[in-house]
């Protein structure tokens, strides 16, 4: 029975549910020191002096490093240039602040102490002198030509400008009967992995090797970047990502803290452990999402969408994170949604402010693009007195493949059929009747519809213009190593962070080789043993890595069959492997266990002909074809049904229907887990989570008491329908899918809440939809 398509139980769960996983903080190395950061209490200040004298007088204070000391030892943090970025000027972003501090929580110094408690005490003794400066919190202000500059080496506060054009926008305006205009604002929030950042850096004087145990999604890429930043030979750096308790794209970061930690490990010649506290994590790990869009949509009176144009402003924070162009483009390039438009035009400004730097988070900006188009469709439908579903049906792409004006070629799927299925799941017609009935009772039920094409397997960057190393995500290399007993290790340069790789990669490998899954084990995360890989990101595992697993498995199978053919005295091309037996196809009884073949390949090499090499190992790569920014195009339709309590502004879910198509599913249970988990995160981001700064630039949400992540009690039960339209360009037909739930939920939930209270004269164009905000909108509508 083929393993692909089976909802087998996750092979990694025994470890997780019995508490026998190993996270960075579970690792203790001999002679290890504990580190703590001194962080800026100011949003914006000149750094006049950092004095570690008193700190090092503490009996347990061992060593420290300041920005001034680090400056000549570590180069700037990387920023990836997008090939069509019109402007990208890099702020001088260092691992520790050296001239000014530019956000609350920015690392200023790092201390090492004999234990974790002492580290915190020692850090408190570091004396830092600041001259506070006026903070710039609002990008609309910061972008103005006369605004004070946050970085001396920039011409102004625009850190990145991208202009993208597609199709014929002029024709779209020319043919338009009217132009729909709105300003949308999405609030700042981020992924908050339950395991915060953490790292142990260790320098071996004898071998001159730097070893990191680090909670990261990108062990290989981190290694390359550290080599560049520290001017340290790459082959002398080893990064080990042990179990990782959540990543969500945040852990694609090359953390400045880790660079500083490496410097301190080299300085002290001892292993140094840093485990981020939740407060640090909320202040200084990457934030995401905060954007505004000034949108114009030229429309025909008959409901035809002709084009979409937006000026997108991203609040980039105090420095540019490496991936700043990704989520910026992710929003802009997703503006047309799954709809046929003639013209597309987006101008993106990522603007420097005194907030935490802005980075990657599940969905990579595309939820903002989805919100803009999906919210606009609802508002246009109202203007035209049309049903919002009807307007979508008129404009949705009817046939795939479809070449979008953005340059993306949507690969496969039937968006209309998906929408119809979702409408059927909620019984849309009856639901609208129920809504009308409830409104008469003074109850406000809302139905939100959102549909989107998710890009999976992004490859936003290109090395062509970069000053730094730039990872490319469109290929993967996998090694299969069979041992002397016939068991197989699958070596992958990724990291599982709740992403079920140990299960799905084993399923694909089992089918490719013809072995029982129990004899296959997946190994990830250690750069010393796995092939180079761009990491767990961009929903690329299914679309890029799994085909490489299959290729590598087939190559290994070929080698096994070759030895088997010799032993069974058959032709190599007649061999097959079934349930762990090498056999001659069609000749029952003429077979050998794979374990026997393995034994021969390793220990009876002399009995093999000269042209058959010893050992059983294969390494193969898969290079995925790109279409625009992405590799595959899964899609989904979300229909949440909510009731808004108009006295308190609280939102209750009555239903939540999801239709999801990510091509061939290796493990439907895993797919459903990702869909539901992503949707829950999206719902949380829409209703609960917000990074709130006051006007002085102090972050007010520095604990989980104030920054509210959703809990089980806040979630509806989700009905998920799986469609499986194979990706034609990917062997196996898989598409990536990890980010989508988080993308569509945002637009869908906003639309549902808006639909509920729209009869009361409320128009929603910004988030979050906290109860307080909903009541405020209702108050404003009442006048």
């Amino acid at each position: 029975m083929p393993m692909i398509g089976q909802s087998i139980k996750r092979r990694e769960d025994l470890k997780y549910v019995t508490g026998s996983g190993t996270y960075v903080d579970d690792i203790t190395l001999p002679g290890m020191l504990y580190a703590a950061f001194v962080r800026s209490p100011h949003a914006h200040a000149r750094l006049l002096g950092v004095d570690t004298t008193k700190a090092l007088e503490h009996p347990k204070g061992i060593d420290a490093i300041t920005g001034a000391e680090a400056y000549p030892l570590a180069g700037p943090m990387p920023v990836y240039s997008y090939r069509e970025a019109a402007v990208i000027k890099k702020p001088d972003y260092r691992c520790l602040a050296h001239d000014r501090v530019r956000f609350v929580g920015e690392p200023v110094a790092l201390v090492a102490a004999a234990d974790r408690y002492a580290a915190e005490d020692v850090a408190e003794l570091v004396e830092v002198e600041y001259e506070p400066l006026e903070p710039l919190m609002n990008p609309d202000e910061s972008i103005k030509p006369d605004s004070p500059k946050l970085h001396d080496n920039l011409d102004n506060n625009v850190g990145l400008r991208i202009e993208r054009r597609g199709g014929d926008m002029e024709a779209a305006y020319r043919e338009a009967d009217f132009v729909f205009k709105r300003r949308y604002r999405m609030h700042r929030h981020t992924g908050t992995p339950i395991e915060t950042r953490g790292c142990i850096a260790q320098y071996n004087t004898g071998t001159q090797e730097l070893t990191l145990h680090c909670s990261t999604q990108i062990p290989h890429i981190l290694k390359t970047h550290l080599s560049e930043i520290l001017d340290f030979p790459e082959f002398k750096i080893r990064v080990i990502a042990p179990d990782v308790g959540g990543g969500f794209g945040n852990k694609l970061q090359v953390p400045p803290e880790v660079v500083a930690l490496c410097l301190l490990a080299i300085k002290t010649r001892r292993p140094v452990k840093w485990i981020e506290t939740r407060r640090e994590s909320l202040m200084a790990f990457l934030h995401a999402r905060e954007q505004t869009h000034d949108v114009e949509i030229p429309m025909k009176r008959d409901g035809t969408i002709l084009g979409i144009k937006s000026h997108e402003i991203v609040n980039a924070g105090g420095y540019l994170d490496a991936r700043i162009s990704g989520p910026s483009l992710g929003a802009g390039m997703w503006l047309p949604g799954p709809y046929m438009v003639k013209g597309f035009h987006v101008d993106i400004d990522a603007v420097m402010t005194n907030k935490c730097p802005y980075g990657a988070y599940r969905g990579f900006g595309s939820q903002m693009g989805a919100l803009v188009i999906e919210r606009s469709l609802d508002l246009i439908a109202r203007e035209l007195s049309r049903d919002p579903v009807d307007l979508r049906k008129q404009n949705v792409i009817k046939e795939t493949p479809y070449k979008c004006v953005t340059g993306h070629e949507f690969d496969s799927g039937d968006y209309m059929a998906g929408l119809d299925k979702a409408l059927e799941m909620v019984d849309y017609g009856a639901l609208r009747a129920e809504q009308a009935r409830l409104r008469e009772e003074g109850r406000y039920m809302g139905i939100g519809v959102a549909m989107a094409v998710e890009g999976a397997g992004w490859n936003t960057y290109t090395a062509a213009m970069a000053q730094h190393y730039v990872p490319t995500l469109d290929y993967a290399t996998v090694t299969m190593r069979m041992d002397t007993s016939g068991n197989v290790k699958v070596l992958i340069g990724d990291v599982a962070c709740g992403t079920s790789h140990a299960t799905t990669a084993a399923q694909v490998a089992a089918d490719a080789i013809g072995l029982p899954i129990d004899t296959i084990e997946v190994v990830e995360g250690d750069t010393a043993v796995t092939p180079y890989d761009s990491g767990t990101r961009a929903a690329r595992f299914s679309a890029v890595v799994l085909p490489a697993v299959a290729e590598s498995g087939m190559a290994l199978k070929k080698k096994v069959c070759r030895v088997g053919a010799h032993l069974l005295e058959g032709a190599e091309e007649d061999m097959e492997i079934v349930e762990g037996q090498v056999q001659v196809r069609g000749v029952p009884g003429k077979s050998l266990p794979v374990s026997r073949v393995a034994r021969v390949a390793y220990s009876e090499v002399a009995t093999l002909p000269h042209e058959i090499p010893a050992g059983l190992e294969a390494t193969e790569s898969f290079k995925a074809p790109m279409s625009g920014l992405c590799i595959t195009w899964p899609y989904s339709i979300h229909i949440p049904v909510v009731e808004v309590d108009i006295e308190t502004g609280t939102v209750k879910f009555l239903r939540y229907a999801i239709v999801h198509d990510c091509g061939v599913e290796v493990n439907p249970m895993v797919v459903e887990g990702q869909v539901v988990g992503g949707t829950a995160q999206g719902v949380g981001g829409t209703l609960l989570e917000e990074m709130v700064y006051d006007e002085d630039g102090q972050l007010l949400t520095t604990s989980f008491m104030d920054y509210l992540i959703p809990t089980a009690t806040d979630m509806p039960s989700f009905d998920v329908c799986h469609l499986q339209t194979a990706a034609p360009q990917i062997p196996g037909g898989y598409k990536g899918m990890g980010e989508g739930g988080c993308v569509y939920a945002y637009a869908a939930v906003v639309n549902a809440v808006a639909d509920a209270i729209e009869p009361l004269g409320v128009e929603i164009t910004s988030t979050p939809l906290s109860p307080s905000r909903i009541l405020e909108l209702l108050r404003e509508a009442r006048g």
Partner: protein
Amino acid sequence: MIPRAFEYFDPATLEEAVGLLEQHGEDAKLMAGGQSLLPMMKLRMVSPAVVVDLWRLPELDYIRRDDGVVRVGAMATHYALHSSPLIRTTLPALADAARVVGDPLVRNLGTIGGSAAHAAYNADYPAVLVALNAELLAVGPDGKRSIPAVDFFTDTFTTCLEPTEIVTDILIPVPGSGARSAYLKLSRRGTDFAIVGVAAALTEGEGGHCADARVVLTGVGDVPVRVTEAEEILQAGPLDAERMAEAGEAAKRNLDPPSDVQADAQYRVDVSGVYVRRAVAAAWQRS
């Protein structure tokens, strides 16, 4: 999330505990479950030199009825309270409150005495204790004294306790016939502190009237806020939906609640009216 160094004591007797407080004065903090104290210590918001843990004092962990009074030990956990048949039947508002404090982990360790003495402006118990006319017993170097709940809370995170005093018992009169109560809380998520919480203690009189009403809010001031104007409205005629709504509107007057990241002051005022109405209705429906 890393506290400063502190010295830890877990005395075996109350006398010993009081002695430790006398010895260390303001440097000492009592721990009665630790569900607020420990997070504050981990965030270095407070850094007591000495922590005196009351967990070993079994005489403080009980729930029982003595004649006309329900007596609760200060170390009774939230879980013990909301699962107690005595509390559920005689003091439903208290059971309601105990059921919505924090999450199950907090409810298993946190205690009523700890929560009351912590006196957070948005905690659940203070409003209920005032509404139910509770008295708190405290022991100190000069012996025991009894403090009415209404006098106990003096400011947010502040009570009338001396640094050397320990809350030992909470006494609540068993309500007479026709009495009913409820506590209703509005929070962002199930596990959060109250944006607004309302404790309503009502006594049914003749002909569908409410003979006595005590309605107290949490989350809208430094101390529990009793809305007497609303109470008067509730008692002024037959208690129907209209009267409840009127009382809700009255409760909103003269409130001066705080703003925070979860809700601004105006929101708290608006939902106070709604929650007073709903809490009264919830209590009134109980028989």
